[in-house]
């Protein structure tokens, strides 16, 4: 059970509500689709509202300054911002309140963009009414908000990295180099992941075996690193700074507490069963071709490569990103080594983004690799030694005899991703890749604090990208580790022990040991363990005596929000 480091005195009562409502134009994102002036006027007339203001961008430097100025000048003790999503902007507005001397929990967020102007772009009148009502509901809740003080808990100075491929190894070494303990868990017998089967790396044409071998040896020798192979994460509980993990390694159970977790489980290549006559002999995957090259066993006079096999098709819509460059790399290597071998690449689109990759594409053409474009509506037809491709540019069927056919199949989610997703309670996208907190701004964080991701577990990435992401995830994960403590949201349960009869239902429904029965002079009573309580509210909604109050989501606040538009007596 984590220790609570500090527990400040409860904040003083902010007094009778004086609410400031700030309505954001968000450029044209909100103001372009609703009558923003009418919305502000409506807000001004609401009970307890002392001040209203419209901002072009409330989140801009100017907007935040206007909030802070108004808090001081208008003696505001509650702030409502009607703009976008708490997911992206709540921390910003909370800290603006804090800087102006207002407890950040006296801030209420109303989303009139994602939940209103964006979804009702064609319904100006209705959207305006809805925005007014959402603000009315937010104001009703704001009037009842109470100040809360942050809870600070200690952080275990240890990281758990799941997955021992290039991403996991890189992240492990980066965190260990900063002076923290790291446990690296690999499911297979050996570290190395998918790179073990790769021949050469684009664009450097360096040896994949050398790169991964060097990294494996380095991580194994590294101080502070514990490498567990044939291992898997069995169970995890807790939260940032205090994740209790159980790992099974070669039949042994290992229990430990780690501060942060990095998911680097990678991806695997699709096996194209039933596609293009795949047989694993003369019709292989690009991955199997890679092995032939690595082992020096390639023997063919005519090689055809088909791209986008099982990718960018209905049911698996995404682009696997690495297959074009892999095909081009192997085509170059083959043509350089055996100029008499013909190489054909049948593609739908070539993705050679960036500064270096396009150069390789040009080089492959120079070396005489034939690129033939096909269309998904007329895919190549494969027989035992011949491909007939409908060349989109010629508009004709072209027969190409082959000794070896290489099918470029996409990287697909690692087996067991769903179990891991459930154990860690982190989401995956519709394809089964792990989903980051924000595609742009938090690319290696999960929405859950203290859990990070990198490499192909997130989406298909090449080595360079995986290493970048691993270093980024390591840097992000090191923040709580080096701070040594984290702030936990003070959204926790509070027990009125005078009402509590000690039935213990709260303890039964709690998944976190966040509340328990304890002996008091008045008999057994429930008590919240603030550092462990996650604030879900399940105990509060269950308590037969209604003796549990959920801070920041009290019955009163929620009910006020619900009845704000009508105002029925209770």
């Amino acid at each position, binding site marked *: 059970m984590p220790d609570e480091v500090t527990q400040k005195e409860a904040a003083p009562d902010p007094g009778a509500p004086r609410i400031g409502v700030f309505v954001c134009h968000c450029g044209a*994102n909100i103001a372009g689709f609703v009558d923003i002036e009418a919305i502000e006027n409506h807000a001004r007339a609401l009970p307890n509202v002392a001040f209203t203001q419209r901002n072009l961008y409330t*989140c801009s430097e100017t907007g935040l300054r206007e909030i802070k100025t108004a808090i001081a000048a208008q003696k505001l003790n509650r702030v409502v911002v009607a703009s976008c999503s708490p997911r992206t902007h709540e921390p910003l507005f909370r800290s603006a309140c804090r800087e102006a001397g207002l407890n950040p929990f006296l801030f209420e967020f109303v989303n009139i963009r994602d939940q209103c102007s964006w979804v009702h772009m064609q319904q100006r009148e209705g959207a305006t009414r809805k925005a007014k009502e959402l603000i009315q509901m937010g104001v009703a809740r704001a009037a009842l908000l109470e100040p809360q003080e942050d809870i600070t808990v200690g952080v*275990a*100075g240890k990281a758990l990295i799941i997955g021992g491929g290039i991403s996991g190894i890189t992240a492990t070494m980066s965190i260990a180099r900063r002076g923290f303990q790291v446990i690296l868990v690999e499911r297979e017998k050996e570290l190395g992941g998918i790179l073990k089967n790769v021949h050469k790396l684009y664009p450097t044409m360096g040896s994949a075996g050398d790169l991964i071998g060097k990294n494996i040896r380095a991580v194994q020798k590294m101080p502070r690193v514990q490498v567990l192979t044939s291992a898997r994460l069995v169970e995890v509980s807790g939260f940032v700074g205090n994740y209790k993990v159980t790992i099974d390694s070669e039949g042994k159970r290992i229990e430990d507490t780690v501060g942060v977790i990095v998911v680097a489980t990678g991806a695997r290549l699709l096996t194209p069963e039933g596609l293009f006559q795949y047989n694993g002999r003369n019709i292989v995957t690009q991955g199997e071709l890679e092995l032939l090259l690595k082992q020096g066993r390639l023997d063919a006079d005519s090689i055809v490569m088909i791209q986008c096999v099982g990718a960018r098709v209905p049911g698996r819509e995404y682009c696997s990103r690495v297959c074009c460059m892999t095909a081009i790399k192997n085509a170059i290597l083959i043509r350089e080594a055996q100029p008499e071998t013909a190489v054909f690449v049948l593609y739908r689109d070539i993705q050679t983004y960036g500064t270096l990759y396009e150069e390789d594409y040009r080089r492959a053409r120079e070396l005489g690799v034939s690129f033939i474009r096909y269309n998904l509506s007329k895919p190549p037809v494969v027989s035992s030694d011949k491909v007939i491709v409908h060349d989109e540019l010629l508009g004709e069927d072209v027969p190409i005899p082959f000794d070896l056919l290489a099918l470029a199949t996409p990287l697909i989610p690692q087996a067991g991703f769903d179990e891991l997703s459930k154990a860690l309670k982190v989401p995956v996208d519709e394809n089964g890749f792990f989903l980051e907190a924000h595609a*742009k701004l938090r690319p290696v964080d999960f929405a859950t604090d203290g859990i990070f991701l990198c490499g192909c577990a997130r989406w298909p990435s090449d080595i360079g990208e995986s290493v970048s992401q691993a270093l980024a995830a390591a840097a992000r994960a*090191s923040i709580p*580790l080096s*701070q040594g403590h984290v702030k936990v949201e003070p959204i926790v349960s509070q027990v009125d022990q005078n009402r509590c009869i000690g039935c213990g239902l709260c303890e039964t429904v709690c998944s976190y040991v966040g509340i328990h029965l304890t002996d008091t002079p008045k008999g057994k009573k429930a008590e919240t363990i603030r550092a462990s309580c996650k604030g879900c509210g399940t105990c509060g909604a269950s308590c037969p005596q209604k003796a549990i109050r959920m801070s920041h989501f009290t019955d009163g606040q929620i009910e006020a929000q619900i009845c704000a538009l009508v105002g029925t007596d209770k």
Partner: protein
Amino acid sequence: MNGNADKSKMPIGSVLVVGGGITGIQSSLDLADGGYLVYLLDELPSIGGIMAQLDKTFPTNDCAM
């Protein structure tokens, strides 16, 4: 600060980040959160770079500001 690492081996000092666009800002924030003193340098009068001039960013349609 630096509560968990072996203190004698912790790097000490400051970091200069050159360029105040989204890359430089995010690097500075993460470094500062990690316990380093950061100098963030930009040649323009305000930080923000190209991203500050965008309206929305795909695929989330979030406001770039």
